[in-house]
């Protein structure tokens, strides 16, 4: 049974007490209090990743099992919520990737500035390629709002299906994440065209020089 004092301990202090516990019952009490604080959050996220409650329950059980098995190696100088989040996220990502045989959006690529042939190992080509990748990263930050940017990262980098992203972000618009991908691609293409036009336009100083 937990004491009133334990109710106000921080997550990290509870983890420390778990690690120092002499008796199993004592360790379980501390871990129970600690995990109980996150049960609803883990249940919510597992449900959003899975899309059905039976799978969400399996995922949530697995998250707490892994956390329990590794709680002794938790470093108390880091935050418990971050540590548990990473376990939960990796567990759910693995599940989604194993389950999803569907390919990513196979329409036109988001990349509108084609980099030089990436198989080329010529130094200047490599530098040019890296510069263009940097340009694209900058453009993304400038052209897209936070939600569009997140959807792009979750779909193209984390390889999450659009339906999962829609649930994870709680999107309520008609087409969910798909609509945001479409608008993000459109914005990026416009931004790239503007950037290319800027690069082609001669600078004012050059114009003056030519006029003299």
């Amino acid at each position: 049974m937990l004491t009133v004092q334990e109710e106000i301990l921080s997550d990290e202090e509870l983890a420390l007490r778990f690690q120092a516990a002499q008796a199993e019952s004592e360790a379980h009490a501390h871990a129970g209090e600690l995990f109980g604080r996150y049960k609803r959050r883990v249940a919510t996220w597992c449900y959003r990743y899975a899309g059905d409650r039976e799978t969400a329950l399996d995922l949530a059980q697995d998250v707490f099992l892994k956390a329990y098995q590794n709680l002794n190696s938790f470093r108390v100088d880091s935050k418990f919520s971050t540590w548990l989040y990473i376990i939960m996220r990796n567990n759910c990502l693995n599940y989604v990737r194993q389950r999803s045989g569907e390919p990513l959006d196979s329409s036109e690529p988001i990349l509108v500035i084609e980099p030089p042939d990436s198989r080329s190992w010529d130094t200047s080509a490599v530098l040019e390629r890296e510069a263009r990748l940097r340009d694209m990263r900058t453009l993304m930050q400038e052209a897209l709002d936070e939600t569009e940017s997140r959807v792009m990262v979750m779909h193209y980098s984390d390889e999450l299906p659009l339906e999962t992203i829609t649930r994870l972000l709680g999107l309520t618009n008609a087409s969910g994440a798909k609509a945001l991908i479409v608008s993000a691609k459109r914005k990026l293409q416009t931004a790239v065209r503007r950037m290319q036009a800027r690069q082609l336009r001669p600078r004012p100083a050059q114009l003056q020089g030519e006029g003299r």
Partner: protein
Amino acid sequence: MTLEARETQKRILGPSAACLPTEELIARLTRGDAPAQAHIGECAHCAAQSASYRDFVEVEPQGTEVFAVNWVENRTRMPWEAAPAPRRTWKSWLSNSRALAPLAMAAAALVLTVGIGTRAYFGGSPQDLSESAERSQVVELLAPKGDLPKAPEELRWAAVAGAAQYRVQILEVDRVVLWQGTTSSLAVRVPAVVRNKALPGKRLIWQVEALDSSGGELAKGSQDFRKQLNPVR
């Protein structure tokens, strides 16, 4: 999209050499580390990771998900707590019983044979079978499933004890409902308008909810199918 284009996209949207592991990034952000703050201002990948963690900490289930989240939360047990006996089919039991000596396996086969014979002779109650379906809280969907040579004409599932009717839905992968209906039988014809939407390679989901006489959900099941790109001839 070519593999190369996909790889380039991953390089634009994935972590770069300047990115920290997510745990380290969040730890630094929590401490108010200025370089980490500056980094998420210019890196979409790390900004997304940071936002997802923030959502995890602040999340509250919304609308229709509240009921399901309550259900999951109430049933989540701590690893040291006694869990209810896992649901295992006889197939998974047999496949995991490698340690059994061949003699024991033969004895088990004999018991099964006698058991099945006895059941067949005295007549097993169909109620027994449907009760086990109710305990599992999952509607067993019989067909269609997986890749199909052509769009399915019929959806079939197993009975659930106590079910007065079944709500059937066909959905796109983004959960947009293409068609739904309610029936008291264990199969429905797929309307032509939906069959026409089952384009080659496009995945569709169908789900069945077993409802009791007051409309409450007893069990639910869903699975997907898709028409093959190149039908087997």
